C-alpha cells in the first residue's frame, strides 16, 4: 500500500466512524472521564438507542473524588471507569469508543498503546492501529505462553500453538509475540460489565472444590479458601474481584507498583453494590413499573437471589410473572404500540425459555452428561436466575472463536476486505485425547480458557456473560463478532440450525434488549 493510499484509507476510516456515531457527533455528555470528580447518584438513567439503562448504587450516592475506581491511578491516564462506563452498562460500547476517537482525535487514554492498539509497536495516531477497538470494541489481552499457574510456575500445555494469521502483527512481533523473549499470545476481547457482581461471583448452586464440567480443581479465593464460580472473566483467569482489580490495574492502567489493600477494598466495595439493567424500551415504555415483570430493572436484580438455577418453571431465568403475555387493545394507539411491544418481549422470553433446538458439538455442554446432541432451549446453558449466565463454572465453546463456526471475512477476488482477527492453529499433543468435537487440530481466533488451563478441551471456550444491559453495550460475544442483537440471534440460528422465524428472531431481540 502506498503512502497516499494509506492516508486515503485513514481519512475514510475516520469518516466511517463519524458517520457511524450518533446524531450528536460531539463527545457524549454521558462519558465519564477519569478524575472528573462528580458524584455518581444513587440511581441514574442513561439513554441508549433502544431505550434507557438504569444504574443503581445500593449504598447510595457515591463520592467519586479520590475513589480509585474513578481516578487515573495508573501511568497511562486511564481509570477503571474508562472502560466501565455507567452509560454503557459498566462496560464499553463501540459507539462510545468511536465517539471518543472523534472527540479527542484518538488522544483519549482509552486508546493507550498497551491494549488500545492492535499492537503497541504501531503508530498511535493512525486509526488502523486501533482497528480492533474502533471496529469491534476489542482490547488486546496479552497472555504468557506457556500458561502459568497463579504462583507464576509454567503449566505444560496439552497442545502446541502456531500463528496462522496475524493482522495486528503482535503475535509475530519479535518484541511482543509468541517468539519473543517473553513468549506472549495476544487475543482481542470485549470488556465485561462490572456490575451485578453478586451474580458473577456467587458461591451457590454448582460451585464446589472441583469443577462440575471436567472434575478439575476450581480456583479458590485466596482470602477465604473457598472455591469460586470462576465466572468473572471470559477466560476465568481471575477468580475474585480483588484479583481482577489487580490484574486490570497492572495490564490496562499500567499502574506503577501494585494497588494498595485500601484501593482494592474501595474498588471491590463499589463493584459489589452497583447494579445495571435496562429500565425502559422504545415502544414498550417503562420496564420497571411497580406491577411489572420482576425480571427487569436493577432494583429487582439487587433484591433477588444470586447463584440460583432458573432453568425451571419455579424460579425462571428471567421471571415475567405471567405478565405481558396478552395485553388489551384500545382506541389509544400509543397504548396499543406499547402493549404490542411488551407482548413481543414476553414472546421472546418464551422463545428463550421454551423453544427447543438441537445443541450439538458444544464443548462443556454436550460433554457434561446431556448427550450430543441434546434437545434443549437457550435456558439450558443460560440458566442462572436473573442473569442468564451459567451457575456452574461457565466456559463453553459455542463456536464464536473456533472454526468452522467463528465469523470470518469471506475471501474472494471481488472483495478487499481482510480478516480482522488473528488465527491460531492448536495441535493437541500425542498422548493427549483429541478434542471430542474438533479433533486433534483446531483453528481458532482465540483459544479462550485454554490459554489459562492449557487443556485441549478448553480451546475456544469462553465464560458466558450476563445478559444485562445489552442494549447499552454492543457489540456482543467476547470477540465483538455480533454487531447487534439481531446478529447475535442470527449466529445461534446458523450455529445450531435452529430455523427461527423472523417473528421469533424479532421477539428474541426485543426480549434481550429489555434485560
Amino acid at each position, binding site marked *: 500500500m502506498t503512502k497516499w493510499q494509506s492516508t486515503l484509507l485513514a481519512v475514510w476510516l475516520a469518516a466511517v466512524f463519524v458517520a457511524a456515531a450518533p446524531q450528536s457527533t460531539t463527545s457524549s455528555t454521558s462519558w465519564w472521564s477519569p478524575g472528573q470528580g462528580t458524584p455518581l447518584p444513587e440511581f441514574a438513567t442513561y439513554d441508549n438507542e433502544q431505550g434507557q439503562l438504569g444504574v443503581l448504587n445500593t449504598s447510595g450516592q457515591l463520592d467519586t473524588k479520590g475513589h480509585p475506581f474513578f481516578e487515573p491511578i495508573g501511568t497511562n491516564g486511564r481509570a477503571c471507569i474508562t472502560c466501565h462506563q455507567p452509560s454503557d452498562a459498566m462496560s464499553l460500547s463501540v459507539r462510545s469508543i468511536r465517539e471518543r476517537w472523534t472527540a479527542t482525535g484518538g488522544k483519549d487514554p482509552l486508546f493507550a498503546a498497551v491494549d488500545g492498539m492492535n499492537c503497541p509497536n504501531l503508530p498511535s495516531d493512525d486509526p488502523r492501529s486501533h482497528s480492533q477497538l474502533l471496529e469491534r470494541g476489542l482490547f488486546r489481552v496479552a497472555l504468557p505462553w506457556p500458561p502459568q499457574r497463579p504462583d507464576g510456575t509454567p503449566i505444560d500445555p496439552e497442545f502446541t500453538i502456531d500463528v496462522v494469521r496475524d493482522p495486528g502483527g503482535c503475535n509475530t512481533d519479535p518484541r511482543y509475540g509468541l517468539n519473543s523473549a517473553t513468549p506472549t499470545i495476544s487475543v482481542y476481547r470485549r470488556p465485561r460489565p462490572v456490575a451485578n457482581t453478586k451474580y458473577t461471583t456467587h458461591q451457590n448452586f454448582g460451585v464446589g472444590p472441583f*469443577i462440575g464440567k471436567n*472434575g478439575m480443581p476450581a480456583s479458590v479465593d485466596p482470602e477465604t479458601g473457598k472455591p469460586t464460580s470462576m465466572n468473572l472473566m471470559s477466560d476465568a483467569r481471575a477468580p475474585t474481584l480483588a484479583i481482577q482489580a489487580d490484574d486490570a490495574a497492572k495490564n490496562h492502567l499500567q499502574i506503577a507498583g501494585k494497588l494498595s489493600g485500601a484501593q482494592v477494598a474501595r474498588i471491590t466495595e463499589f463493584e459489589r453494590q452497583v447494579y445495571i439493567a435496562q429500565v425502559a424500551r422504545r415502544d414498550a415504555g417503562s420496564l420497571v413499573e411497580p406491577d411489572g415483570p420482576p425480571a427487569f430493572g436493577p432494583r429487582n436484580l439487587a433484591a433477588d437471589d444470586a447463584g440460583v438455577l432458573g432453568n425451571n418453571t419455579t424460579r*425462571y431465568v428471567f421471571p415475567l410473572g405471567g405478565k405481558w403475555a396478552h395485553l388489551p387493545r384500545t382506541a389509544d394507539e400509543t397504548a396499543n404500540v406499547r402493549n404490542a411491544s411488551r407482548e413481543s418481549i414476553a414472546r421472546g422470553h418464551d422463545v428463550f425459555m421454551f423453544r*427447543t433446538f438441537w445443541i450439538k458439538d458444544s464443548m462443556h455442554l454436550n460433554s457434561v452428561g446431556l448427550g*450430543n446432541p441434546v434437545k434443549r*432451549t437457550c435456558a439450558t446453558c443460560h440458566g442462572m436466575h436473573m442473569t442468564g449466565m451459567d451457575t456452574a463454572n461457565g466456559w463453553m465453546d459455542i463456536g464464536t472463536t473456533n472454526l468452522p463456526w467463528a465469523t470470518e471475512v469471506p475471501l474472494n477476488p471481488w472483495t478487499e476486505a481482510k480478516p480482522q482477527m488473528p488465527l491460531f492453529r492448536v495441535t493437541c499433543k500425542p498422548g493427549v485425547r483429541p478434542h471430542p468435537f474438533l479433533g486433534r487440530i483446531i483453528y481458532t481466533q482465540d483459544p479462550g480458557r485454554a490459554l489459562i488451563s492449557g487443556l485441549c478441551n478448553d480451546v475456544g471456550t469462553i465464560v458466558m456473560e450476563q445478559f444485562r444491559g445489552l442494549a447499552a453495550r454492543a457489540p456482543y460475544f467476547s470477540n465483538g463478532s455480533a454487531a447487534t442483537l439481531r446478529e447475535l440471534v442470527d449466529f445461534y440460528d446458523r450455529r445450531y440450525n435452529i430455523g427461527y422465524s423472523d417473528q421469533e428472531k424479532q421477539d428474541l431481540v426485543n426480549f434481550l434488549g429489555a434485560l
Partner: protein
Amino acid sequence: MNARQMIRGDVLWLAGWLASGAAVCFGAEGPRKNFVSCPIVRDTASVPCWLSEYDGELYYLTIQSDVTSPVTPPWLGHRVLVEGTVSAEPRICGGIVLKPVHLSVMPEPDASCNTMLPAEERYNLTFEPPRPPGPSKGRLAFDNAAPPRPAPAALPPTKEFVVPYDFDALVGFNHARVLTDMLEFARAVNAQEIEVVGYRGAARLSNGQVMAEEADMGKRRAEQLAVLLQGANLKSPSYKVSWRDESAKATGVDDYAMRRAVVTIRASAAAR
C-alpha cells in the same frame, strides 16, 4: 477313578461350564449385550431417545434427561461401548431395552456416527420422562432417587472411595462429586496418608473380542487423582500411588466395574 466317575465328573464340569457360560451370556436377568457401535438419536414428541444397532437388532440405551441421570446419553460423532443386559420390558422408541446398561463414549471421533431420526408417532414415549426437553419443574431429574445419608456420629479413621470410569477415560464431569467427598473426608480427619490405586480394565464383547483399555490407563488414573487432590490444596498427606492391570479378568459380565481407581484415605494418628 472309574469310567462312570469320569463321565459324571465331565458332566458336572460341563454343567458348570455351561452355567458359567450362561452367566456370561445371560446374566441373572437376561442375556448380556456388549458391543461397540454408533449411537443413534431418535426425536420424540418429548425428549429424544438414544438407540444403537448391533447384529441386526435395535437396542434402546437411554433417554435424554439431565446431569443427574445415572446413564448419560452417548455422543454422535463417536462410537459407544454398550455393556447391557436385555430387559423384559416392552421396547422403547423401537429398541429392545438394555437395563441395566453402561455406556462409554469412545474417545476417538468417528464422523460416520451421525444418525438422527425424526420423531414418529409410533415411537413416542409411553411414559413421562424424568425431565422435559426444556426447563424442569423445579427439581433435577434424579435428585430424589438418593436422599442424603445422615452424617455418622464419628468419622471412621480410614475410608475407601471407589472411582468408576468410562472405558479408556480419565476424570470427567461426573467425578466432581466423588472428588469432593474425598476432599471433605480428608480435611475432616486431617488425613495423613492417601493411597491411590488405579486399575486398567477391559471389556469382553458379545462377539468374543476382548477390548482392553490403553496400556497405561491404570497409571494415568492413579496419578491424575493424586494430582487433582493435591491441586485442591490437599498437600500435607503423603501419597502412595500405584496401579494394576486387570484387563485379563474380563468376562463379559460387569466388566465396567474393573475400570476404577480406589482411593483410601487414612486419618492422622491424632484423629484416630
